[in-house]
């Protein structure tokens, strides 16, 4: 007896579920019911389902009957102690309102309508259903496209081989970007570790470093990138030096060149000419003009 119920249940269909089920099977039934119920994505979806069952056009649907079915449905859910999404309840009340209006004599209906300036809730509901239905159909078509696209394979030819006369493409990123990133990481890390570690000691300032770099360059003409950091005693000093360098490049005081791949970056005075040599020369990889750097207030000139 029990097992019969169990298997029969899912076929019963939702709206025929009347509150007459044996309590024994209740939890199992509810599980089944929930599974079925979740198929409906919302009250509109459920309404469309009910309309489809009636095999009528949306425009021809008997709203009073639809309202009854819908509310029955909600009642069943409530009886089964299922969680009812708020949207279903709102729809139920709209439908109840529509239903109650239908029961009134025509002249009294007009009065009600007068309050809302022609806002006929029936019209509104039908319009909403029609619109929703269209998008549901559109979604189905998207689904078809989605499935189709899974089976479309792009041609991926093997790489063409020509004697490589052109140099390998230069990366659109430089060591400066990397250092900048390091700086960001460390700053954020320090912020997060909330003063557990030494914060900036202000032992070094960017402007001091700007002066230092300019002085060195003036004395020596140019300097290798790594040399700038040789004497750095702490991370904050490295960062300051680095920021100073970025600032000087930004101000077009200095220019960086990397004569060839793998060679050390050299820093020298920027050419007085408007176009820095590095920017125009595609094989010199590093110009830092596009590096976004923190902008210290200090100017070293």
């Amino acid at each position, binding site marked *: 007896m029990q097992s019969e119920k169990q298997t029969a249940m899912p076929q019963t269909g939702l709206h025929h579920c009347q509150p007459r089920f044996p309590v024994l099977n209740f939890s199992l039934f509810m599980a089944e019911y929930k599974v079925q119920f979740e198929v409906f994505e919302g009250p509109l979806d459920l309404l469309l389902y009910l309309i489809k069952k009636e095999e009528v056009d949306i425009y021809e649907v008997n709203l009073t009957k639809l309202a009854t079915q819908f509310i029955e449905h909600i009642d069943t859910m409530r009886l089964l102690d299922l969680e009812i999404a708020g949207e279903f309840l709102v729809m139920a009340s709209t439908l109840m309102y529509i239903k109650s209006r239908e029961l009134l004599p025509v002249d009294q209906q007009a009065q009600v309508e007068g309050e809302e300036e022609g806002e006929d809730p029936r019209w509104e509901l039908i319009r909403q259903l029609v619109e929703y239905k269209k998008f549901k159909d559109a979604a189905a078509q998207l689904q078809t496209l989605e*499935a189709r696209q899974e089976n479309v394979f792009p041609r991926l030819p093997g790489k063409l081989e020509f004697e490589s006369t052109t140099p390998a493409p230069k990366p659109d990123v430089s060591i400066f970007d990397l250092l900048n990133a390091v700086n960001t990481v460390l700053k954020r890390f320090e912020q997060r570790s909330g003063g557990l570690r030494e914060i900036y000691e202000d032992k070094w300032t960017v402007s001091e470093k700007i002066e230092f770099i300019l002085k060195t360059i003036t004395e020596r003409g140019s300097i290798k990138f790594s040399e700038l950091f040789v004497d750095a005693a702490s991370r904050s000093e490295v960062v300051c030096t680095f920021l100073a360098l970025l600032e000087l490049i930004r101000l077009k005081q200095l220019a960086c060149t990397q004569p060839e791949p793998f060679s050390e970056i050299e820093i020298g005075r920027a050419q007085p000419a408007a176009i820095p040599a590095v920017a125009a020369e595609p094989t010199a990889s590093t110009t830092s003009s596009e590096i976004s750097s923190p902008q210290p207030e200090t100017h070293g000139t």
Partner: protein
Amino acid sequence: MELKFILESLLFSAQKPLSVKELREILTNAAEAEDADPGAKPFAKVKESDLTAALEQLAQEHESAARSYRLACVAGAWQFVTQPEFAPWLKALVGQKIRPARLSAPALETLAIIAYRQPITRAEVEQIRGVNVDGVMQTLTERGLAESVGRAEVVGRPQTYGTTALFLEYFGLRRLGDLPAADELRRIPLEKPPGPVTVEPGLATAAPEQLTLENKDGQPAAPVEPPKAE
């Protein structure tokens, strides 16, 4: 040398889809190369419209040839792709395509609404679907299929959403205009049309012709069509 064949050879050999702009650049570079072939010169400054026309013609030719592949334009970039019916063998060749899990029904519905109605606010999407869409919206933006595109000029200036280039790629669409039945869906007004609606009591059960929906232009909206499968 005919432009369309040059383009064909390029698309045939490219490792990725190429846009009209990229194709134009290649033609220019070929013409301006140090050791440029004299034949390449005439194409140094081809107009984009000419390129597009040639590409369309190519696509048409391949369509007519009805072979196992075709020239497709997805999200504005052109690429040769195989026809879906050869998937069983291509899977044996290259393995299953790595694709994200298919979209759920709610996600597809929401995406359809965004696609046809963009820019659209979350509230407007909810109005159409009749349910809360927070979860699905998040899924869609996380998957890069929809994104915030601005703010609506209404109280609270809520964010508006639109679809991305990835959306087009995901569904193999060239542009938004290629969405199925795009015009029809766009025409439905989101809001009830202004002006009095002359409804008879009992209209809800009236025949369709008596229930002409009017859109903002005052034109009757297209009748509801049965869902048509592709």
